[in-house]
Each structure stands twice: as C-alpha cells, then as structure tokens.
C-alpha cells in the first residue's frame, strides 16, 4: 500500500514537472456567440510574416553589385513597402535537416508589409531629419547600389543598419508603444467583443497575441534552454524547434526571430533572465485575458495586465540596450586592431575595417531601435546619438556628418579613432547606468571591475 502510495505521488510529481513549463497557447476560444470551428484563439501570423519580411530584406540588402541597381531596389521595396502576393521567404529557409514549413510570406499571412508599421517619428541618430520609413527607404536605395551592402567610404553596412533598426522600429515599437500601450485601455479592442466580426478571438486576446508575435519567440520557449532558443534561430537545433513533432518547423509558432534571439543570447551567455521573464509575462497576461471568458476586463484585471506589459517593456528595452552595449565593446576592440595595423602590426586593414563597420552598424541600429519605444529618453537619447555619431570614425579621421541635397553622404568633423574609442567607453557607461544592464557583454571596464573584485572591498579595522 505504502509503495503504491509513494509511487503514485512520484508519478504525480513527475507529471507536474513535465507540464510545469508554460507554452504560449493553445488557449480556448472565449468570444461570446462564436459559431465557427476554431478551438485555439491564439493568432499572431501577421507579426510572424513581418519577422520573415525583415529577415528577407536583410538578405536582399547584401545582394548589390556596387552599381545602381533598380531591380534590386524594387525587390527590396516589395519586401519593405509592398503587399504583393507571391513574395518568397528568402530567410529563414530550409537548411539541411532543419526543414521549414512555409516558403512564401502569404502562407503565413497575406498582404503584410513593414512600412505601415515602422516608427513614424524623427530618427535623430541618423543624418537627414528623416522619419523611420523615410530613413529605411533611403537606406534601401543606398544598399541596392552598394557592393554586398557595404560602403567602405562611409563605413556603413546597410543590412545591419536596416535589420537592427527594424528590430526596434517595427517589432519593439509596435509591441511596446501600441499593443502593450494604448490598446490595453478599456475603450480599445474590448474583450467582450470579437476583434473583428466573425473572428474567433476577442479584442484584448488578439492585441496581446500581436505583441507576443513581435517578440519572435517560439511558443514553447519555456520548455527549452536559452541556448536551444538561440540554436533554433541559427537553424542548428531542429529537435528543439519541432515542438509538435510533425517533422517540420512551423514559422508561425516554432521559430526564433530577432528580439527573442538577442534576449535568449544574453540569457545563454550571461545568465540573465530576459527571455524567460518576457515570455512568462506574455503567457501570464494571456492566461489572465483568457480567464475573463469573453467578458469585458475589469479595471483591476487591466491593471494586472499592464503590470505584465511593464515587465515586458522594461526587459525588452534592456535587451536592445544590452545589444548596443555589446556592439560598442566590439567597435572599441575593432578600433584597437585597426590602430595596431596602422601602427605597423601585420593584418589586413580592409578586412578589419569591414568587421568594424559591421559591428558599428549593429550598434547604431540598436541605438536607433532603442529610441522607437514611444518613451522620451530625454538627455539619454542625446548622449546615445552624440557619442555614436552619424557614422563610424574613419581610419584617416572624420565621419559622416550629414547628407547633401543630392542624397550623398558628407564626411567631415575632427573625430579621431582614439577619441572615438573613448566615446565608446562613455557610451557603454550611459547604457549600463540608464538601463540598469546586467549582462554587459564586452564591457570595456570589465578588467578594472575584476581586479577590484580580486582585491576585495572589505577592510577590517586594522591598525599600523
């Protein structure tokens, strides 16, 4: 009897632990009076479609041959501004055993584009006084005419600038400044009505789902380690991705995209909890909405929902800041390498400069992304923009300072590599202080902190 009892308790515990990790859905249909056949109210295909548009656009940005290329430009614009049917998913695509279900954007969602969802404010970190969509289209034109997305004269790597900016300018901006913001108010997308007539999800359910879709995390991420979530983005862990075991990765729910990739990356390497915290808050929020069973959310329910939203916003913002911090560290290290080559060390300066340009583009993209969340960063934003400048410092000094009337970049200023390295040190400090960063990868002052740690701060009252 005792044995039976123990074994049943153990079995029970195992069952609990096996189901302990939450997944984002399926959640039941709660819309009152819904007569259709759908049983799962979760839907964020439009957001996933945009994730694939962003990744595809990044790929296209590296396909220029160095001369003006109207065809490529048109294709890129089709992925950015167009809504045409038939657009192929250029990335992510099947790679070896990592088989992907969808090959066309329409298979995920029809008629979607990125432009309509791009942050419409002024982009202060980039020359030309452009709005988000204007800047992206300007960058698309430049990228299409560049060789492989790279302009050695300015140090711009367009595919990085475009993709990293869009990670904020579309995904982060839409999620934190729209869906998790005004759309949580009582008078917007109420929970006692279908999102649109005939839909199988309520207004609030869908609003929340859409924000989740922009984060780009597999719905089953909490059953995985951050390392696995990263590996899925790199198409290196099919098993981890294929949650329903149907032998194919469904981009709609099983893939890792941009923002989530970075969150998981920091968690995997630095032991932070960005991915799990954000994902859990999304799941908890969705459960709360579902628990209202198609009734209007009460004020206290919405207050609770806003708390989850705040957790998501804060951590998402930190992820973008962590990424900018990390790349500022890379830029510093790259400049050290370039400086050494200039001073006579062996090495290929062109190659070194290209690596530096790539890291700079990533850093700049994230810095601009960080400023699209609808929150006034005030003096912090000014510092981020001024310290990073409009362009990477060039080997001979100077950097992009503006754009002339013909749309060409102007280079000038008295910035030197040495001074720019100091700017990177300061930039990291601003990011770490203002956003309370935890991972701080490639921290330029890490050595100092580690020496102090070895020495210890403790001092007993010891006399002489």
């Amino acid at each position, binding site marked *: 009897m005792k044995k039976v009892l123990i074994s049943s308790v153990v079995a029970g515990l195992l069952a609990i632990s096996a189901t302990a990790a939450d997944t984002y859905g399926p959640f039941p249909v709660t819309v009152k009076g819904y007569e259709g056949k759908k049983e799962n109210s979760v839907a964020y295909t439009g957001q996933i479609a945009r994730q694939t548009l962003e990744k595809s656009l990044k790929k296209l940005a590296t396909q220029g041959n160095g001369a003006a290329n109207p065809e490529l430009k048109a294709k890129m614009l089709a992925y950015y501004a167009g809504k045409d049917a038939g657009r192929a998913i250029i990335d992510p695509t099947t790679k070896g055993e990592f088989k992907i279900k969808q090959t066309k954007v329409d298979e995920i969602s029809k008629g979607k584009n990125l432009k309509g969802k791009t942050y419409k404010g002024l982009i202060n970190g980039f020359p030309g006084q452009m709005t988000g969509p204007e800047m992206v289209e300007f960058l698309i034109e430049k990228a299409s005419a560049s060789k492989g997305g790279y302009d050695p004269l300015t140090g711009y790597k367009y595919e990085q600038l475009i993709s990293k900016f869009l990670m904020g300018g579309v995904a982060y901006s839409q999620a934190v400044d729209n869906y998790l913001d005004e759309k949580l108010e009582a008078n917007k997308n109420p929970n006692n009505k279908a999102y649109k007539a005939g839909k199988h999800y309520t207004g609030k359910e869908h609003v929340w789902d859409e924000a989740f879709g922009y984060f780009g995390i597999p719905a089953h991420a909490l059953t995985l380690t951050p390392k696995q979530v990263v590996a899925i983005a790199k198409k290196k862990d099919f098993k981890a991705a294929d949650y329903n075991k149907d032998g194919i990765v469904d981009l709609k729910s099983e893939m890792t995209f941009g923002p989530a990739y970075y969150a998981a990356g920091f968690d995997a390497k630095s032991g932070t909890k960005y991915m799990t915290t954000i994902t859990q808050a999304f799941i908890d929020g969705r459960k709360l909405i579902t628990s209202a069973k198609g009734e209007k959310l009460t004020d206290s329910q919405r207050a609770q929902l806003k708390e989850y939203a705040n957790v998501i916003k804060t951590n998402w913002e930190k992820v973008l800041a962590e990424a900018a911090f990390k790349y500022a560290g890379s830029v510093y290290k790259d400049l*050290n390498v370039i400086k050494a080559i200039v001073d006579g060390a062996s090495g290929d300066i062109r190659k070194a400069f290209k690596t530096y340009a790539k890291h700079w583009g990533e850093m700049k993209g994230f810095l601009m992304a960080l400023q699209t969340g609808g929150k006034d960063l005030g003096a912090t934003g000014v510092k981020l923009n001024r310290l990073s400048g409009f362009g990477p410092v060039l080997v001979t000094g100077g950097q992009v300072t503006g754009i002339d009337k013909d749309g060409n970049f102007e280079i000038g200023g008295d910035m030197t590599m040495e001074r720019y390295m100091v700017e990177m040190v*300061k930039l990291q400090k601003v990011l770490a202080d203002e956003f309370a960063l935890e991972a701080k990868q490639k921290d330029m002052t890490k050595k100092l902190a580690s020496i102090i740690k070895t020495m210890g701060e403790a001092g007993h*009252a010891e006399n002489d």
Partner: protein
Amino acid sequence: MIETYIQPFLNEWLEFFTSPQKRVYWLYMLTALFIGFTYLLYTKKSANIAFSKLFSKDNWWSKTAKADYKVLFLNSIIMLFVPKLLTKSVVAFGLFYTLTDWIPKNAMFQGIFEDWVVATLFTATLFIVDDFAKYWIHRWLHTIPFLWPYHRVHHSATALNFFTIFRTHPVEGVLFSIRTALAQGFVLGVFFFLFAEQVTLLMLLGANVFFFAFNILGSNLRHSPVAMPYPKWLERYLMSPAQHHIHHSKAVEHKDKNFGIVFSCWDRWFGGFCHSQANIELDYGVGNNLADKEHTLKKLYLSPFSDSYKLLKRTLKRKS
C-alpha cells in the same frame, strides 16, 4: 538573518586566518614566529629564554592582550553594521571616467610596454601609494588633536602581540577604509586609464606579491614580544619591527616617531624618522596611564568620543 549577518561574520572570522590577504594569515604568523624565535635564539643564546620571551604571558594572555582579543571580536560585529562610505570601485571608476572627459585619449600607453612591465609597475605602485597614504593618515592620527583619542586606543596596549593591530577604534576603521578606497582607487583609475586591459595585479596565493612578501618576512613582529632591528642601512628604507616598537614607546624622546608602515623613507623625507636602538627596554602604552583602566571596553570604545569632542572644542575656541 543568518544569511545576512551570521554567515558573513563567520566567513570573515575564518578568512582572518585562511586568507593571504589578511595580516594574520596562518602562514604569516608562522614565519613571524620562526623569524622571531631565530632572532631571539641568536641574541639570547638560549632556546629556553627565547621561547619564554616569545610566548610570554604578558604579551599573549594579560589584561592588555585580552582587551586586544575583545576588540577584535566586537569590531568584527560592529564593522558589519558600519556602512561603506567610499569604495575603491567608486573612486577608480569615477576617476577613470573623469580622466576620459579631460583627456579624450583612452589607453594611450597600452601596448607600449610588455605586459609584465605594466603588471609589475601597477602592483608596485599600488603597494607604494597605499603605504604612502598610510603614513599620512597615521601621522595625522597622532598630530591632529581631535583624532588622537581614537588612535590612542591602539597605543593604550601595554604589551604587543600579533592581534594588537586589531586593537582599533571603529572610527579609525572607517577612516582606514576611506584611505584604502582613495589610495587604491586612485592608482586603479589612473592605471586603467593609461594601460586598459594590460593592467594586471601580480599575486601570490591571491594576495598582492609585495603585500605577501612584506608579511611572509615577519611583518607581524611589529606587534610582538620581539623588537627585531634591521641593519642600519636597511632601516633607512624599510621599517624594522624594532623601529615600530619605538613608535609604541612611552618615552618622550620617542614621541611622534616612525609613522611609516612598510617603508621608513617617508619618515626620513617628511619627518619622524628614528633608528632602532640596541639594548634598551621600552615601556609601551600612553602617558601616565593607569594601565588597568585602559583595557575596559568602556574606555576603549566610548572615551575617545568624549575626549575627541573636548579637544575639538578646545581647538576651535583657541582659533576663534
């Protein structure tokens, strides 16, 4: 409660004897005893006499010694509750960022010297600057009237043993921690600004090599029954245990002598130098004190506050 207070307290106690960053690390004490015994054997020519002098009850288990132990114990609790006013981290980072504001040329010396040169330079500078700061604070504790009552606690020991270094008033403890933060933070900030990643602390068993050397070579004899001198030429640079015994002497002619800790040149350059003297018996303690009264906890912990206040008032009155 246990995790916040008891655990760190117990850890700190264990660390006293097991961490080479502490002055009473077991190996440092062992080598000090060995050096002290060898010296006594050499001068007294008798192992018995050497042994009884080294382990004399007066030094290790008298009223004054017991007071040392009590203060050590109580301070380790008190210091847990004393907030850190300044840390070397704050000073080092603050200075580093200030320097980058002033001179927009980070790591300008990085790569000019070999790594080992920078490491040696940094480790030595840290040790020397720290010692220099100690000299000044120590000197001020003796010469600034309202500070003296706190330092007097240390000097009220009438016999010296290895643990007399911990006979320290908590106010002094706070001053010392600020001193360490400033001196070490300064060196850390400047070096990191100049050499960045090249900055490395040379260590032996987890302690600064120079600190290790100073301690393994018998630093604990400074507070011990053994007033061991160094050759005259060496005493001009390094403070011998006997020179520090003079610092603790009650004699008028020894007043305000030998403030230095590791290096004695500070005293030669800035005042206070005195060689050790052969064959003299020193009387330790302060003024014409009634020794017994000096070792009560009330006297050790509370009197300095009222004494310091009185002296401060007197000084201010004289000035106005």
